C-alpha cells in the first residue's frame, strides 16, 4: 500500500519538473495561437454566435425593437400555424426548392458532360457557363431579369413567334415563380464545376469495357457515369437545397416585400424580413428564423437517409 503510494509520488515527482516548463511553452503557444485566431474568433463570437443566442431568446418574446422584449413562451411558434401568410410562404418556398434544385442540377450536369469532351475552345465555354454565377446575387441582374420577362420584352416576343401567348411573366401569378426558377438554373456555374471534377474521376477503363460490350452512349451514362459520380451529385444536391431555402435578393427585387404578383413570390425569407423590419415584430421573425433552421435541418437529415440507397462510394462493399 505505502510502496504504491510512494511510487506514485515519485512518479509524479519525476514528471513535475518537466511539467511546468512544457505547460508554459504550451500556454505561450496557445496565447499566440489565440491571438492569431482572434479576428476570426471575435467575429464568430460577436457577429455569429452572440446574435444567434440572442435571436433564440428573442424568439420566445414579443419584441418590437423599441421596448424591451416581453417573454411570451412558445406563443410565436404557435401563431405561425394559424398565420395564413406564413403557410403560404412555406408553400412557395417548398415549391421553389422542389423545382429549382432538380432543374438547376440537371442543367449543370448536362453542361458538365458536354464540356467534359475534348474539343477546341473548351476553356472558353467553361468560362462562359460559369460567368452568370459570378454575378450571382447581384441586384442589377434581378432587375434585368424582370425586365426581360415583362410584357413585350424579349421572352414574351420569342414565345409569341412560336405561338405561345403568356404576356409578361413578371405580372402573371402562374409564371412568376418559374421565372425565378429559371434565374437559378441559369446560374449553374458552381455545381457544374463540381460535376466536371467528378466526371474526371471516373476511370476510363470502365467506359472502354462497356463499349467493347456494345453499350451505347445513354447506357454508359446511366450505368457508369451516374453511379460513379453519385457522391458528387449528393454533395451538390445538399448544397443547392440549403441555398435554395435561403433565396432572397432576386425574389425581393422581383416581388418586393409582398411577394408580387399576388403573393406568388412570397418566399420564407421575404416574409421573415417583412415581419421583422417592416412590421417591427422581431420576436416573431426570430421564431420564424429558427423554424427555418429546423426545417432545413430536417430536409437535410432526410436527404442523408435516402443517400444510403443511391450514393455509391468506390471501395464501399455493397
Amino acid at each position, binding site marked *: 500500500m505505502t510502496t504504491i503510494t510512494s511510487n506514485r509520488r515519485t512518479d509524479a515527482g519525476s514528471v513535475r519538473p518537466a511539467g511546468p516548463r512544457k505547460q508554459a511553452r504550451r500556454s*505561450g503557444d496557445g*496565447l*499566440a495561437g489565440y*491571438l*492569431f485566431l*482572434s479576428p476570426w474568433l471575435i467575429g464568430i463570437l460577436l457577429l455569429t454566435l452572440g446574435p444567434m443566442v440572442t435571436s433564440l431568446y428573442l424568439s420566445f418574446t*414579443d419584441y*418590437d*425593437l*423599441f*421596448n424591451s422584449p416581453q417573454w411570451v413562451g412558445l406563443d410565436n411558434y404557435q401563431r405561425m400555424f394559424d398565420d*395564413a401568410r406564413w403557410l403560404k410562404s412555406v408553400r412557395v418556398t417548398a415549391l421553389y426548392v422542389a423545382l429549382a434544385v432538380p432543374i438547376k442540377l440537371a442543367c449543370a450536369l448536362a453542361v458538365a458532360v458536354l464540356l467534359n469532351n475534348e474539343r477546341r475552345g473548351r476553356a472558353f465555354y467553361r468560362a462562359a457557363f460559369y460567368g452568370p454565377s459570378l454575378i450571382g446575387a447581384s441586384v442589377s441582374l434581378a432587375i434585368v431579369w*424582370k425586365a426581360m420577362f*415583362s*410584357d413585350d420584352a424579349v421572352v414574351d416576343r420569342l414565345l409569341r413567334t412560336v405561338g405561345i401567348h403568356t*404576356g*409578361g411573366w*413578371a*405580372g*402573371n*401569378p402562374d409564371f412568376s415563380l418559374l421565372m425565378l426558377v429559371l434565374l437559378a438554373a441559369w446560374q449553374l456555374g458552381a455545381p457544374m464545376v463540381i460535376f466536371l471534377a467528378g466526371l474526371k474521376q471516373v476511370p476510363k477503363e470502365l467506359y472502354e469495357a462497356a463499349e467493347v460490350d456494345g453499350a451505347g452512349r445513354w447506357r454508359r451514362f446511366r450505368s457508369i457515369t451516374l453511379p460513379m459520380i453519385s457522391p458528387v451529385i449528393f454533395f451538390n444536391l445538399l448544397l443547392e437545397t440549403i441555398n435554395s431555402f435561403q433565396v432572397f435578393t432576386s425574389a425581393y427585387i422581383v416581388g*418586393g*416585400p*409582398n411577394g*408580387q*404578383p*399576388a*403573393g406568388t413570390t412570397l418566399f420564407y425569407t421575404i416574409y421573415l424580413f417583412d415581419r421583422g*423590419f*417592416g*412590421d*417591427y415584430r422581431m420576436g416573431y421573425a426570430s421564431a420564424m428564423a429558427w423554424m427555418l433552421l429546423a426545417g432545413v435541418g430536417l430536409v437535410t437529415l432526410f436527404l442523408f437517409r435516402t443517400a444510403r440507397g443511391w450514393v455509391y462510394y468506390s471501395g464501399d462493399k455493397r
Partner: protein
Amino acid sequence: MRLLKRFIAVTAIASLALTGAACGDDGGDAAESGPVTLRYSWWGNADRAALMQKAIDLFQTQNPNIKITPSFQEYEAYWQKMATETAGNNAPDVFQMDFSYLREYSDRNALYDLKQQEGKALKLDDLLDGLKGAGQVKDGLYGVPVGANTWGYMYNPAVYAQAGIPEPKPGWTWNDYRATVAKITQATKGKVYGGGNYVGSYYNLELQLRQEGGLLYTEDGKIGFDKARLARFFNEGKALADAKATLPIEKGVQIKPQHALELDLIAGELGWDNFMARYAASTKAQLKLGPVPSDNPGAQGQYLKPAMLLSVSKKTKHAEAAAKLISFMINDPEVGKIFGANRGLPATNAQRAAVQLEGPLATVAAYEEGLKEQLTKAPPAPPKGAGTLEQTFIRIAEELQYGRISVDEAVNQFFTEVEDTLES
C-alpha cells in the same frame, strides 16, 4: 524566434487595443456652449440630397456653432434603418417623419416633445392654417410638417378629348367616376385605360369615408369602418377590374416603380397632388388637376395632409439646436426657394410666397388655393401599425384584382390583420 513571437503578440494586442479605442471614441459629447454636431436623416434620392446640402450649408453659415452630419436612404430602407437605430439607442438627432409612422414612434417613447421649444427656438406661427397642430399626439408635439399635399384627381385632358367625353366637373359622383372610366376604356378600345389601381388605394376609401362623415381611424386609434363598408368598396373596385375598365393589375405590377400616368397608359387617377410634379416630368401630356368625385355634395372630404414632418429623437443632447434646425427648414424663405416643391408644397406662408412656382407646381398650388375653403380638418395621427395596415390593404386589393380571392375573403383577411395589428 522568441523575440519575433513577442513582437507579434505585442503588435496584435496593440492593434486590438487601437481598434477598441477607435470604437470607444464615438460617444464624444460636446458642451452646449461649444460647437454642436447634429445628425440629420431623411428619405429621398440624390436630387433631394443635393438640395438638402445647399440648405444645410446655408444653416451652417448662419449658425457656425452647429455642424450637421446628413444621411439619407430610399423610403423603405429608411424606415428599416430608423427602427434599428432607434432600438440601438442611436437615432439621429433630427429626422424626417411620415404621418403614418408618427404614432408608431411617439407611442413608443422615441420622440422628443417639441412643445418645450415652441415659441423659443422653434417658430410655428407661420404654418398654413390647415397644418397647425399637425404632428400633435395627445398633448405632445412630436413632429413639425415641412410640406403638405391634398388628395386630388390628376388627368390627361387630351385623352378625354380623344374619347369625346367632357372633363370632370365639380359635383360628379362616384358612379360618374366609374362610368367615365369604363367609357374612356371603351372609346379608346383599351389603348388607354380610364383609370388605374382605384381599388388598391387606401386613400380612396378614406376619401369616401370622410365624405360620409367618417374617418379611416377613430380618435382613439380604432378602425373607422366595418366589414360591410369595406365589402362595398371592394365590390365596386372589383367590378371595374373584372370589366377590364381599369388598367389590368398584371400591367400595373410590371411597370413599377413607374406610374401608369407617366407612361400615358391611363386617362386619370386619384392621388396625392404633389405627385403631379413627378408625373409631369416624365410625360409629354399636359396633366390637369380636377375635383374629386363625391356622392355628398358639399362634402369633398379632402384635407391638407402633412406630407413630411421633422422629428427630434428623445435621446438627443442638443434639443435646442435641433429645434433651431427644424425652424430654419420650415420658415426660411431661402430654403423654400432651394427646395421648390421637392418636399411637397411648403408648409409655411413665407416659404410658399418665396417659391417661384411654374408649370405643374403652379397648377398644384392653384388647386390647393382653390380648395382652401372646402378642406376639412386633418384626421388625427393614425395609430401605430397603420403603415402595416396600408401595406396589407394594397396586398389584398392586388390579390382581389388577380381573382385569387373573393371579396368576402379579402374583407376577412383585412380584418384579421386589423385585430392582429391594432391590438398588439
